[in-house]
């Protein structure tokens, strides 16, 4: 379980390769070549020497320290190929590996044959920086330069790295939806911090750290401090400063957190100083961890290391990592052990089989509470570099082919110890990637679930009838109104003798029907009147006022007649002897004395005068124009006067009240030379004889 052990396993082949490479082929920095100026040289060279000392210890811890000296020396001379190469190798073997490419690339640029394995190292550096295409080129360049013997020895290793890069290229194109965040500086340190174990509520974390202070014991294997267990509590979203959980759990040797029970009261720990490393259980007593006992010899074997444990939901099954040599498929494998019904003894561990376990190492295991999914880290060929996290689903009593969890969860460096929280969204693991505080750090993963579609928003005017709606209705047009044309007769009514304005009734009679079609009154103060005569008829127009003879006019208004205004001032004659009126609406057949029916309205008005004035005596006189003989006109005028008298008699007027006389054309009222004048002269008059 210890990180140092992990490193031995995970990079065993490479380490061996490096060891043989660099033990046999030291990289010498030529002092003269390095020296550029006196100023600063001594200090720089001291750093080179110290760096070399640490480098050739070939321990991870010492590589990291060497980078500090080499980078200081580079400040003096950054153009030395060997120094750049050594710096790059140090980064490649410590942290952050991603920085190695910069130095190794420069070393190769400065000196094409800086080292026989420079292209291999460049490939490693590019791979660690996720520059997979460049890495493949470098690996192939290196491979092409290998002798047959070297190819036999290292060909497979190089091919594996190339395969990892190809995996990386594929997975880079289909990144998984996850957010990776360095947990917190309250937890992570510049040293290795790893294998977080959490209570089921996610608020208590115990983890392993190789932090230390001067004077603490350092492992001779990797020159790092021994492991201790630390704990932190989360309040809201903030983790408290991690504290060493102290004795008796932590000793001066390796003590690592492996698993925590759901209630957070039982901690499985790994102790690496006994029997090659075994599992123990510690119990929380109050606020302190104590009572340590081992997990029975069915799990812990004398000849093997057991590490990374995951219990099922009810604690009756234990999945763990072991390097049991006898039934291993290669390196470390995942095993399963059952708790007996009494809950006291664990069964003999069973290897999970060749689907899950490979000829490479499987380290760190996590099984979902329902045991349907197993997550583990492995450096098998499907990795993209170092240890990657894989996932397999248990269905129909068979584990599916493990799949790489993908980028960004996995990186070309080590990604291990995944723990998924019960909510399925939050997870923790540790990774050696760049970006943390230093070395292995604990990271939080947010598993984002399926990709959400990016919803562009677009509109169209799909329907023209909606974009330009027919919302302005076509109204029905105005209707044709029937009109009649008219003539206006207007003027004043006054007393004939005094010229004083009179209020009088003004009537319009349709002579054809005899009906009054309009009536109005003249203004009593001004005597003004106005009356309209619609076109298409012959009208009798009469003005009556008490005490006066009526006045009549005749207007013929043809249908096609244009607008006309007729001004007619009317002077009514009082009902006294000598007053006379022309009966304009008395009509006869041409050249005859037969009254036409259109005359009746007017003559009825005359008859009405006798009703109002019983003592009235009228002279009815006929008049003609001057065409024809006097005798003929005399006869015609008398006959027409008689016709009127007879009509009035017929209306009940007393014969004694009526006289008739024919005046032929003795008393013209207009010029007989014109048709209009002659028309006016053809008339019947009524004159008051007495009243």
């Amino acid at each position, binding site marked *: 379980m210890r990180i140092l052990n992990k490193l031995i396993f995970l990079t065993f082949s490479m380490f061996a390769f490096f060891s043989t490479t660099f033990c046999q082929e030291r990289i010498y920095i030529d002092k003269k070549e390095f020296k550029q100026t006196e100023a600063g040289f001594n200090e720089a060279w001291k750093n080179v020497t110290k760096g070399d000392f640490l480098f050739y210890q070939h321990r991870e811890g010492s590589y990291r320290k060497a980078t500090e000296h080499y980078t200081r020396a580079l400040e003096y001379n950054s153009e030395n190929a060997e120094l750049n190469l050594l710096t790059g190798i140090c980064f490649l073997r410590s942290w952050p590996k991603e920085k190695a490419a910069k130095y190794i690339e420069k070393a190769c640029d400065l000196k094409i044959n800086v080292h026989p394995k420079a292209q291999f190292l460049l490939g490693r550096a590019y791979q660690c920086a996720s520059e997979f295409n460049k890495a493949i080129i470098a690996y192939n360049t290196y491979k092409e330069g290998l002798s047959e013997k070297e190819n036999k020895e290292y060909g497979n290793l190089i091919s594996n790295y190339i395969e990892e890069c190809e995996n990386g290229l594929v997975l880079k194109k289909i990144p998984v939806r996850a957010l990776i965040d360095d947990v917190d500086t309250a937890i992570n340190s510049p040293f290795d911090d790893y294998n977080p174990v959490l209570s089921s509520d996610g608020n208590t974390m115990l983890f392993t750290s190789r932090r230390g202070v001067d004077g603490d014991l350092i492992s001779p294997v990797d020159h790092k401090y021994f492991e201790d267990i630390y704990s932190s509590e989360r309040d809201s979203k903030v983790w408290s400063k991690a504290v060493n959980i102290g004795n008796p759990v932590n000793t001066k040797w390796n003590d690592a957190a492996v698993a925590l029970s759901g209630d957070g009261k039982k901690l499985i720990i790994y102790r690496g100083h006994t029997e090659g490393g075994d599992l123990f259980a510690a119990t929380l007593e109050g606020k302190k961890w104590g009572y340590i006992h081992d997990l029975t010899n069915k799990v812990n074997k004398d000849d093997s290391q057991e590490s990374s444990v995951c219990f099922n939901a009810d604690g009756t099954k234990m999945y763990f990592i072991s390097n049991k040599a006898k039934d291993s498929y290669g390196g470390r494998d995942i095993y399963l052990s059952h708790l007996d019904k009494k809950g006291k003894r664990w069964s003999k561990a069973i290897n999970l089989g060749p689907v899950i376990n490979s000829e490479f190492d499987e380290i760190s295991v996590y099984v979902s509470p329902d045991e349907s999914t197993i997550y583990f880290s492995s450096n098998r060929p499907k990795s993209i570099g170092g240890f990657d996290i894989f996932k397999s689903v248990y269905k129909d009593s068979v584990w599916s082919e493990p799949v790489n969890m993908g980028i960004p969860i996995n990186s070309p460096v080590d990604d291990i110890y995944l723990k998924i929280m019960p909510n399925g*969204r939050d997870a923790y693991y540790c990774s050696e990637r760049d970006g943390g505080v230093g070395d292995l750090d604990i990271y939080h993963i947010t598993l984002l679930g399926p990709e959400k579609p990016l*919803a562009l928003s677009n509109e*169209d005017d799909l*329907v023209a009838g909606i974009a330009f709606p027919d919302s302005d209705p076509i109204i029905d047009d105005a209707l044709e*109104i029937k*009109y009649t*044309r008219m003539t206006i007769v207007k003027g004043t009514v006054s007393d004939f003798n005094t010229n004083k304005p009179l209020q009088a009734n003004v009537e319009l009679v349709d002579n054809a029907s005899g009906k009054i*079609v309009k009536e109005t009154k003249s203004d009593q103060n001004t005597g003004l009147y106005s009356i309209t005569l619609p076109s298409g008829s012959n009208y009798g127009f009469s003005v009556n006022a008490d005490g006066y003879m009526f006045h009549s006019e005749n207007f013929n208004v043809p249908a096609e007649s244009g*607008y006309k205004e007729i001004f007619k001032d009317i002077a009514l004659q009082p009902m006294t002897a000598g007053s006379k009126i022309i009966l304009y609406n008395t009509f006869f057949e041409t050249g005859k004395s037969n009254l036409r029916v259109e005359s009746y309205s007017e003559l009825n008005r005359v008859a009405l005068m006798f009703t109002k004035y019983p003592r009235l005596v009228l002279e009815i006189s006929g008049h003609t124009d001057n065409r024809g003989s006097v005798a003929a006109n005399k006869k015609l005028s008398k006959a027409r006067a008689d016709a009127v008298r007879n009509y009035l008699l017929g209306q009940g007027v007393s014969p004694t009240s009526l006289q008739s006389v024919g005046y032929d054309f003795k008393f013209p009222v207009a010029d007989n030379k014109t048709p209009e004048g002659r028309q006016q002269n053809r008339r019947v008059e009524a004159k008051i004889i007495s009243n």
Partner: protein
Amino acid sequence: MKKISVLLLLSLIVNLELIAQTDSMATLVVADNQEAELDYNKGVENYKIKSFDKSLENFTSATLKKSNFYQAFYNRGNVQSQLKRYKEAISDYTEVIKIQPSYARAYFSRGMAYFLMKDYKSAMDNFFTASTLDPKVAKYPYYCGVANFQIGDYKLAEKNFTEAIRIKNDYAFAYNDRGSARRNLQNYDGAIADYNLAIKNDPAMAIAFNNLGSVQRITKDYKKAIISYSSAIRLNPTYFIAYNNRGSAYFEMGNLIESISDFEKAISLNAKYAPAYNNIGLLLLKQKKYQEASTQFTKAIELDTNFAEAYGNRGSSKEMLHDFDGACSDWKKAASLGIENADLYLKGCEK
């Protein structure tokens, strides 16, 4: 009935003295029994000058004077429609249909009133009756198609538009809309052909160019889509919808610079155009500028509180900002508003 003494002067000049001196000017007297018609005509005049309230009074007065005056009911219905009083309009058109059951325009207008009330089924029924009564009017089957389109019966809509085109073979609207029906039936080739016919019959029809562009965008022919949208914009330089769509085509082509330029132009033309804010947000989301993206989505939501896509997208930006509760809240809202693939958004939010 008395003679109406109203003088209707057929000149704007109403000076009697002037009239008296000009024999050519006739003074007319309205013949008997035409008070209703006079009110009706006043209503028409007031309608034409958009004096709708007065127009309404005139038509009402006409109907009171002549209860079977269907033209007055019809026009009053039209005024009510103008005033967006669709229920009252429908009542008037119904009265017309009672008096004059074969009056196709009344059915059409009643259909329009239902249509504007979004009662597309009733609208369709009325348009259909209008088209049966007067089969020579292309507009009637056309609006049957529009109503069926709104109902979502694109096959029937396609048939209606085809009938409208049969009656009037240069009917650009019908070609455009049939193209849209075919687009929704995923007959993209047919849609493109129809939009092109719409353009042929009305080369200034910007919306047909826009729609053509959108089908080309759907079929991932982004270059052609951009040409079509550009034509729409050339015809209507303030066509913000086409700018937004062209921006989307650029976005989908990966040309983010042109894309943002078009989205911003759409907003400059219509500062309240929510889809463009959403799309700018998406662009920022793609650039991993999650906070800025979230701000744009919020603007879109402020403009359209029912904007499902903007909620969905804002949720995605919040997710990347580690605001998972906020993300789930937005996704739940998006799902409630009917966003497509709601399950995808909600997966994980139940925890």
